[in-house]
């Protein structure tokens, strides 16, 4: 187990380097010069542009820039934003907690409600409540999150006035409830459907019949025997979903005015702030990697037959 974890952690290093280099190259390949773009379409002085670029090292070749960036990163320096001249570490430190809060909220919602709905439906497949859930989730899956976002915003904030239309304070959990629900809705539908199918399938399996035949109480049959096996695909999905939720927050953060990394990365992208984009994206890569490691480790907990060398 320990060796397995160590090996997985070591594997992360080339993945991390590879992905950052890729993003770095992509930013470099995009047309548009960040320093020039800062000047807008009014008059400007090319001498100043050249001078700023030289100071930031943007006049050097791509690989040199990448090496400089990685050397800085190893020393814990994420670099400086071109326009605002703020350290990128500060920018990330401001935005990340907001998105993490939103993601945790959404994730908890997805896990509890999604699995709950899935279990309820899956235990009685092909009944009215099962079909009802399938229809409801189908609607959620086919509805883009911005539609749902605007719809809920309109209904809850304007029609019935039970909430504020936008988040004025990103640290307030109560205000984050609406965006988190919207953010969660898509995954929620997937999780519910996945759980439902998995449960419905496993209900018919041999070990279930055995467990029932042994005369175990129903709670134990479902809670331990059925759930454990049925949750494997769901856990896999949820693990990857952590990352998806964080990136998916871009749209939701925009609608509800949540100042998280979604907004940050979008702004940085349109301003060609390469270092900011790479910084945030590398953090996302790390989160994805760690999440998938945790998922793999959870398999063993759920199904003892799975062992790691």
């Amino acid at each position, binding site marked *: 187990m320990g060796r397995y974890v160590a090996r997985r952690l070591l594997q992360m290093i080339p993945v991390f380097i590879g992905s950052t280099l890729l993003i770095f190259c992509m930013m470099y390949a995009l047309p548009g010069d960040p320093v*020039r*773009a800062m000047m807008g379409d009014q008059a400007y002085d090319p001498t100043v542009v050249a001078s700023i670029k030289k100071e930031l090292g943007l006049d050097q070749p791509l690989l040199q820039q990448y090496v400089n960036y990685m050397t800085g990163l190893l020393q814990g320096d994420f670099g400086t934003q071109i326009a605002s001249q703020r350290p990128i570490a500060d920018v990330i430190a401001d*935005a990340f907690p907001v998105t993490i809060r939103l993601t945790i909220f959404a994730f908890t919602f997805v896990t509890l409600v999604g699995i709950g709905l899935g279990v309820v439906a899956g235990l009685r497949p092909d009944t*009215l409540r099962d079909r009802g859930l399938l229809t409801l989730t189908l609607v959620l899956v086919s509805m883009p999150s911005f539609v749902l976002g605007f719809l809920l915003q309109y209904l809850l904030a304007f029609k019935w006035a039970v909430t504020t239309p936008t988040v004025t304070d990103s640290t307030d959990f109560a205000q984050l409830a609406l965006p988190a629900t919207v953010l969660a809705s898509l995954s929620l539908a997937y999780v519910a459907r996945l759980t439902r199918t998995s449960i419905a399938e496993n209900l018919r399996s041999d070990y279930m019949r055995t467990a029932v035949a042994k005369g175990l109480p129903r709670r134990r049959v479902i809670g331990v025997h059925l759930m454990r096996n049925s949750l494997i695909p769901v856990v896999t999905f949820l693990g990857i979903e952590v990352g998806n939720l964080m990136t998916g927050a871009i749209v939701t953060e925009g609608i509800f005015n949540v100042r998280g990394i979604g907004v940050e990365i979008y702004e940085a992208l349109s301003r060609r702030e390469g270092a900011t984009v790479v910084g945030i994206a590398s953090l996302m890569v790390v989160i994805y990697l760690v999440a998938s490691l945790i998922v793999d480790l959870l398999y063993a907990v759920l199904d003892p037959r799975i062992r790691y060398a």
Partner: protein
Amino acid sequence: MRGAKSAKWVAGAIVVALAATACGGNGDDEGKSKGSGPAGYVSIDVGEPQKPLIPADTNESNGSYVIQSIFTQLLDFDSKGDIVYTNAESVTTDDSKTWTVKLKKGWKFHNGEEVTSKSYIDAWNWYANIKNNQQNSFWFQDIKGYDDVHPEKGDPKADTMSGLKAVDDHTFTIELKYTMPYFNYKLGYTTWAPLPKVFYDDPKAFGQKPVGNGPYKFEKWDHKKLIQVKAWDGYQGPNKAKNKGVQFKAYTTLEAAYKDVVSGNLDMIRQVGPTDLPKYKQDLGDGAIEQPYAAIQTLTPAFYSKTFKDIDPKVLQGLSMAIDRDTITKTVLNNTRTPAKGFTPPGVKGYQNLDTDVFTYNPAKAKQLIKEGGGVPGNKFTVQYNTDGGHKEWVTAVCESIRKATGVDCTGDPKPDFATDLEARDNDQVKGMYRGGWVADYPVNANFMKELYHTTAEANNGKFSNKEIDGLMNKADNAKSLDESVKAFQEVEKKLVEHMPAIPLWYYRINGGHGKNVDNVNVDFHGDLEVWAVTTK
């Protein structure tokens, strides 16, 4: 029964969700009375400034809003574009070349330091110095000695510009390289603000926590969320704050900001988004603002491109007459623009009614003019625009109008964002025309001609060049008085119609608004809301 059970479940889930969100609503309402800031403060949707708050390093609107509240320059303009003296007692000249500035006495920075001639001269020298990489340093290029502190290559030869001389603590002179009758108008731009001594200790820290001489004192900058400034008691200018302070709040979208104005969480919005435009007058009532300001949108031909190289101006006049400006501004643009009648927008000194039909829709004459001028090469051209700025709709409409009226095939040439669009313009890669836009830096007609269509102008991205017009503009710059210069530029404008360096489309209008908690919201000549005059109810 089973059906009933499942319905209960779904209903239960909805109730839980509603309860969770309802909590948020109530909790929020209890804590605050009106608006969102401390009592007496007003709030406006001004986003995060791109750069640190140094006057000469900002030319985008978010940053300049904040800088204008914290700093005051020598003079400002009223709604007619006339000069109002703020920090200056007077700015005078005899020959349009040497200008004498007299400062009002007793003015102080927020930290108690007196505002003197030195506060201005030192600041301007610092701004202009190439070592400091200030974005607006070129604003000082008319001053004698600018090339010493800002050479095109290498290190500066001097630390100060020889054209700036202090006579005494409250008088100084500015000597220009050449005559410029409207130079005093330039001094109204935020870039010309003075700096206190504390700036030079640590410009970087100052940019995060500026100390100015303006109507408001800096309070806090909560990055990406809000900037808060407080009315300053010691301010002596005519634009003294009528409220207790301002919160500049960052919003990610116009829609979100608009919703907050309607629900009372925000006092003012600078621009209503396209989705809310049809109903904003209904929603805001008296609070709806619709006013033109000194800015223009044009289609600018790239005169180096295959299509428009050596084009006969008649063709451009024809294309101009093929655009149905009235209908497009009314429908596609939701009345947010006013059809252009010339190269200079209203609200600018020297705005005139050009006696011409070049800007009036006339398909028959358009066709005829294009034919007389030899037609558009290939009978087609493109209009370059950036897709991130809401330009797609009107570019399509303009093209459609031209195609319908003349049969010339016009298509959009979209660039994903402004940065890419600008790069193509800078590198002379525009294939046909591009979408040009210009907001007044100072309200004089020269600003809309000299800076855009003079052969050597930085913003002349279409590379229009005409010796006769260059000569006329240079002559207008040499005029003895402002009035003569303005008149001379009016003549230039009449000439421009004959050469068509660009096709003017429409003047901008601000479509903003304010909520019920505030009053006296006015718009200045470059379309900014005058925050200092806003009162709370």
